[in-house]
């Protein structure tokens, strides 16, 4: 299958595999993908040449072991463009909750011989260790986002970054505000758009899985949550959740009064 098509690699670090599914769950359009790119590395799907130079690498997962650091540096060297996809790759993921605690103690409570397992003291976004050309937030990212970005990059066009909050998606869809009408503590005002206002459309408040929007007013929404009856700990748990170590949410959680319980 040697061709002149641009080469694509999909690399996995510490993750649930859910963001790769943005490709594997494409359905029949998946069969059109080899017409667009030459997939040289995608271990879950079969192709396994991690060291081949490529135009674009999609990277899923967070950096959490000493070996991961070496591997991501190799991926960077082999890639013209490196795109980190998902909450783990862009912010350390849910597993970055361990960054707020003593990971070695946690290891000892789950494994009888934790010394057999090498682990860094933090779960890091890809950008902490290498230059990243494009970040796509979301837990998980969806096919529209990933294929859209791939097509833009392959056409030599800079992908247009999402800047709005989930509130804007609710307005576009004509959804009635769940916080105003039902008193649901909704993270929509501080969460980056991209999901299509999934949670409000499903009858619940947003829980922030796409990470922080730009210019979030965390103080104001925290006050509102307290007025809705959440105690300080419950407000803290809203920020310290899926994208707990994304800059905006991390700063918000550390500024909250409830930051006392480990």
């Amino acid at each position, binding site marked *: 299958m040697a061709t002149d098509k641009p080469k694509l690699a999909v690399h996995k670090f510490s993750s*649930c595999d859910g963001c790769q599914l943005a490709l594997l769950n494409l359905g029949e359009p998946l069969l059109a993908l080899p017409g667009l790119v030459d997939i040289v590395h995608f271990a879950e799907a079969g*192709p396994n040449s991690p060291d081949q130079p490529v135009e674009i690498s999609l990277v899923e997962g967070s950096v959490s072991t000493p070996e991961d650091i070496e591997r991501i540096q190799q991926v960077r060297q082999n890639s013209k463009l490196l795109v980190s996809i998902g909450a783990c790759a862009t912010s350390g993921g*849910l597993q970055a909750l361990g960054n707020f605690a003593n990971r070695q103690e946690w290891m000892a409570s789950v494994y009888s011989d934790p010394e057999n397992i090498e682990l860094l003291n933090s779960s890091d976004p890809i950008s902490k260790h290498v230059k990243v050309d494009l970040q796509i937030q979301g837990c998980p990212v969806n096919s529209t986002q990933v294929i859209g970005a791939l097509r833009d990059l392959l056409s030599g066009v800079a992908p247009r970054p999402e800047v709005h909050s989930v509130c804007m998606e609710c307005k576009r869809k004509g959804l009635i505000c769940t916080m105003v009408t039902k008193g649901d503590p909704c993270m929509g005002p501080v969460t980056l758009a991209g999901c299509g206002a999934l949670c409000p459309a499903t009858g*619940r408040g947003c829980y922030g*899985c796409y990470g922080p929007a730009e210019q979030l007013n965390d103080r104001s929404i925290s006050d509102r949550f307290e007025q809705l009856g959440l105690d300080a700990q419950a407000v803290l748990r809203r920020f310290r959740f899926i994208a707990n170590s994304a800059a905006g949410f991390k700063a918000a959680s550390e500024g909250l009064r409830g930051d006392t*319980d480990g």
Partner: protein
Amino acid sequence: MAEHRDIHINVPVLTRVEGEGALELDIVGGEIERLNLRIFEPPRLFEKFVEGYERNQVIDMVARICGICPVAYQMSAVQAFERLSGFTPDPWVEGMRRVMYCGEWIQSHALHVHLLAAPDFLGFDSVIAMAADYPDAVRRGLQLQTLGNDLIAMFGGRSVHPVGIRLGGFYRAPDRSAVEKMLQRLQAALPEAEALIGWTAGLNFPDDDQSFISVALSDPDEYAIGQGRLISGQGLDIDICYFDSHFKEIQSPHSTALHCELEGRPYLTGPLARLNLNFHQLPPEVRKLMEGCGISFPSHNMFHSIVARAIELYFAISEAIRLLQDYQSPAEPYREVEAVEGNAFGCSEAPRGILWHRYDVDDAGIVRYARIVPPTSQNQGRIEEDIALSLQKFGLDQTDEKLRLRAEQVIRNYDPCISCATHFLKLNVTRG
């Protein structure tokens, strides 16, 4: 006669599995001296993350353990919390949760049969290579996978980390118009799923019967999916809360997945174990499809697990049709579940086997301790035992390449999900 070669095989990255793993195999003097399935997915310590979070938040957190089977994680968790509170979900909720779970079986089985396992049987590296010679089969697989994903999304908004399940039911009930469209698609897919059973049963299977213990959930009223008692082919029949009295998790130095044993022995969980124990509970029309295809259940040939997945896929579609016919929207999609202090136990049949959860919850409904035993760590001991037996039967004098391919195929029979278990495969064969 040739001397025994000393062989060291190292498969550094196992492909077409979910997550990362490796296999190390040392053959010395014609005997297997060392065989380690190394799971090296970095530990993510999920059981510690959920401490201090609310029950409904934990349902959304545990989904993140696995992108392939998030529904299973959510269902085991919600079952645990509801059981602890003495809460019995309304019949509508029970029925619709079973339909959503069928969606996950359909997508996961379709993905595994077509994209991950079939290339082994047909001699391709990947589904992308296979698509050129078997375009219709690949297209069928992708269509079925999409159907399962859309069925999940009908309840949860999306198929990966869906957002619909909550304590007491669902956040929102699907619209009748969406259900009616889904019913038409499910009905149209039944003949495809029937053809898939025949297609898998016609594959070439190695003659590789082995003795092993099957473990599955059992429900007196139906083929168990979302709940039941834990049973084995050897007489085990217990409530899920007694799991710890019979099953033990142990850590081996070569893996970040804990191994699990039943009374000190490895065992099988997953589609073949379920069919071995519960085949009689499948509807007669589903059992009839197996007549004349040359394979019968119980089976102790792990290569038949691809047929088991195809049968369960057909069953899941027919079950979803049964439960969605005459669909009525409920007055309320959920009822409140009060917080009760105590130890909560949940267990359900994930696509690749039993998924057991325990949570200790305080009187405010905050989780204080969690333990999760996923199917792949339960199967790990059995996989190692199977590779050793299977390679001995295959012949240790085969080339390294043939040994590697056979070992990989054996491993893929279990559809291991390494992301779940680490808490997967390089083959290192050393012949010395």
